[in-house]
């Protein structure tokens, strides 16, 4: 999942790195195929080298040491808003058919479950040139429609973002624990690749809507030895990856 996420970063791109799993995806990309990527962190940090050791949060001292610039949040968010950021990385509790994200609250049979909230996720989803979301693959996490749109994806389909006034962007991939979903021109998700060892019916049964399947659905490439090495050297205790 982390290797797969890292591959979404193209060399030379400016990436807005969200909290938790995206932190390690950025490091892996920097240490493998995208050495010239630049990372923006919402606390104000801009890095052109990966943090020298494992970080749990973007403000951990290793993420400050050797940074390219330590700014404030308005500085990096302004770069995001003005269109300078190619790719934003997010996590979410729920992702729906049109790539809308919920990280605020879920109302289920047991009542309200309050989640931590947007953080910078809504800003990244609104303003990056494209965004990628990482989450566990289950029916609960992938409902047909999120009950609360924390971070806007494609709304209800084609043209929605433009109608709402969003300047650009939208989801390009949802990387789950089972598969990679991508988004068609109509804004709806489809199954693009299955992770090694995962069966198609498993993915379809664990998605909250009738998931479209690409004609040329493939297997997600296995992590390369270089990617595995970068992950293991960085996350030695397996906190983020197991």
């Amino acid at each position, binding site marked *: 999942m982390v290797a797969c996420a890292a591959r979404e970063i193209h060399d030379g791109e400016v990436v807005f790195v969200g909290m938790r799993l995206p932190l390690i995806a950025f490091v892996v990309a920097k240490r493998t195929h995208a050495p010239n990527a630049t990372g923006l962190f919402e606390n104000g940090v801009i890095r052109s080298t990966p943090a020298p050791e494992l970080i749990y949060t973007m403000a951990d001292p290793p993420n400050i040491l050797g940074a390219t610039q330590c700014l404030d949040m308005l500085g990096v968010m302004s770069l995001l808003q003005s269109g300078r950021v190619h790719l934003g990385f997010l996590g979410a509790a729920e992702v729906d058919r049109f790539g809308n994200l919920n990280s605020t609250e879920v109302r289920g049979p047991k009542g309200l479950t309050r989640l931590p909230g947007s953080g*910078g996720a809504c800003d990244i989803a609104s303003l990056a040139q494209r965004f990628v979301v990482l989450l566990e693959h289950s029916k609960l996490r992938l409902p047909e429609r999120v009950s609360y749109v924390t971070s806007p994806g494609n709304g209800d389909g084609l043209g929605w973002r433009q109608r709402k006034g969003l300047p650009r962007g939208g989801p390009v991939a949802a990387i789950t624990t089972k598969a990679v979903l991508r988004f068609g021109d109509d804004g709806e998700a489809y199954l693009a690749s299955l992770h090694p060892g995962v069966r198609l019916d498993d993915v379809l049964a664990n998605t909250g809507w009738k998931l479209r399947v690409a004609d040329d659905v493939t297997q997600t490439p296995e992590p390369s030895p270089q990617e595995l090495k970068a992950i293991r050297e960085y996350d030695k205790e397996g906190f983020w990856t197991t």
Partner: protein
Amino acid sequence: MSKLLTMREAIADLVPDGASVALGLQLEQMIPFGAGHEIIRQRKRGLTLIGPISDILFDQLIGAGCVKTVIAAWVGNVMMGSAYNFRRAVEQDGMKVVNMTNFTVALALQAGAMGVPFMPTRTALGSDVARENKFFAEMESPFAAPVGEATPRPDGRGRPSPREDGKLHAVRALNPDVTIVHVQRADPDGNCHCWGNFGVMLEGVRAAKRVIVVAEEIVEPEVIASDPNRTVIPGFLVNAVVECRYGAHPSPVQGYYKRDDAFFRQYHELTKTKPDSDAWLERWVYGVADRGAYMNQLGGCRVDNLGVKQHAYAAQADFGY
């Protein structure tokens, strides 16, 4: 004029019941836990907490019953996920949360800092965060191109040209009653040096009606004046300066101590129920008189382990002429 106060005096003087308090503005770094714990010990009530993300300090203040409303983008335990007192307060007790995004917290404070009623932005259009939220209003740019007129195109250098058309969100100004920040060093007048990431501390200080600075070290004014580019807060904005070594533990202070990751993990494990959380507060907040007693309880070995192992000094800047 020296503004040095003890933590007890500063909180008693400047944080009345019912105040809106901005803290944790540097995100996961330099969170003023020492000040937050003193607020809990003084049993302040009816507070409105303001911050982008709070890590676990908001959760502790909520668990201690100090809080009426939260205005924030994210409340939890950054390393571990959910924060249980926050969840209980919202799910069971109906505590009011004004959902923001990080950028819009920054913009609300910036509007407050600039003395204007709002700041325009393109973020959160179409998001439910903005629905029924008094901090958001949709507006059209007053400089929008008339309908039918061509909109600007990207300039061909890979950078988008500024758009002058379309919808915007106005984000309402926010002026906290008091902003509490933690910095590396300050002089007795409140001029502060800080390095690392700033988050929204600069706007948070400029927007506030009153400011408490908590510093790892108090230094002579000459030290601050030697490097004015590192001065993030001018003293005339500051009402109280508190010297508090390790005042941000378990969050990190660059150049002083690292993040105590285990403490965040343990907090997650030890606050899953209300009685457990009460016991945690008893042990780490009510049961210790001040930050010195708290650090003694933490133990010298653990404190040493958090200290800087390898210094990394910046190059000197020559201000001579």
